[in-house]
């Protein structure tokens, strides 16, 4: 039926005729629409949803530590709502160690960014703190060095 040069009008007529033929051939139910009833009963074939079963993998007395951690995680998920205890997680490094490390770390990295003169000051300060009082002779001479010495005529 596809002919070249067919007028648009004749095309439309043909389409309408085809639609008529098709719609007459279609079957339809003469029955009023059934209202879909909302069912209150769900069918379930799994025991898991009915009973409260624990997780199937278990380990006792430390035989497999990963499974024991898993047991705690899976069984607490069922009983309690998930509370994220990020603060209480076991840390590899304790808090005290972290504090100690940071004390020294901040100092060493900070020194790197000082200018040369300031570095020398810092170094002397450290040595002053660490050295015993027996070095009192050297101290004034060092301090004297820092100050500008007027060249003697």
């Amino acid at each position, binding site marked *: 039926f596809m002919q070249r040069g067919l007028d648009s009008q004749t095309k439309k007529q043909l389409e309408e005729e085809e639609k008529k033929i098709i719609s007459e051939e279609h079957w339809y139910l003469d029955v009023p629409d059934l209202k879909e*009833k*909302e*069912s*209150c*009963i*769900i*069918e*379930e*074939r*799994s*025991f*898991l*949803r*009915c*009973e*409260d*079963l*624990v*997780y*199937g*993998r*278990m*380990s*006792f*007395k*430390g*035989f*497999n530590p990963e*499974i024991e951690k*898993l047991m705690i995680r*899976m*069984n607490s998920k069922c009983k309690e709502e998930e509370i994220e205890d990020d603060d209480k997680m076991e840390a590899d490094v304790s808090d005290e160690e972290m504090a100690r490390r940071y004390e020294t770390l901040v100092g060493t990295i900070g020194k790197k960014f000082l200018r040369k003169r300031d570095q020398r000051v810092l170094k002397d300060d450290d040595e002053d703190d660490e050295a015993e009082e027996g070095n009192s002779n050297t101290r004034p001479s060092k301090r004297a060095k820092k100050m500008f010495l007027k060249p003697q005529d």
Partner: protein
Amino acid sequence: GTAAEALVGQVVLPGDLLLLPAHYDEDAEGERLRLSAGTAPQGRLLCGPGLRRSGAGLLVTKCGLLRHRPAGGGAYWVDSQQKRYVPVKGDHVIGIVTAKAGDVFRLDVGGSEPASLSYLAFEGATKRNRPNVQVGDLIYGQFVVANKDMEPEMVCIDSSGKSSGMGIIGQDGFLFKVSLGLIRKLLAPKCEIIQELSQLYPFELVLGMNGRIWVKAKTVQQTLIIVNILEACEYMTAEQRKQALAKLSGT
């Protein structure tokens, strides 16, 4: 038929019709408004294994004890005993790898058909990074597809992509089969058998819903003792079991 609530905890036989309270009745929709808000439950009733929906009530299809759980909209199911496992979606089972067919492993789970497991269904598996699974390995996984029309399919990851304990079960250990009812008893929260056994020796246990149990302890003798206790638990009373365990922990 009789009312469902009257038979809870009693033996029911296939063909019994259980009537449910009026607020579940589909035909009595108009009457729901008349009932007070307190009696109508919030959720839908769960009709568990052994029961089928039929018109006004539930039809029993398996013989066993009728159980009821009032929480979460209520649930009724039949606690029956059987040895043959039928794959159910969501169940965690132990499967034995019987064949490798291209990208898919065939596992024997004790059902009528072997289940299929894709090699990508493991945590951290990619096309290049394939899991090291050989024929004869034990796999702990769950079903994603399990109905009577299709071949069952398993995966070893959960919905978030983590393995959470599933995957290949390690070396050594002992695999044996028990009835499905015993598995459910062992998986109940605060199971006495498991608690008593855990006091004996350190050991590892994997329970599959298809009736298979895998046990591993430090020595072969300890493993076999645990296996024998678990197998005998089916028919021993609690006192007999305690006597047997007392003898063992004494020696």
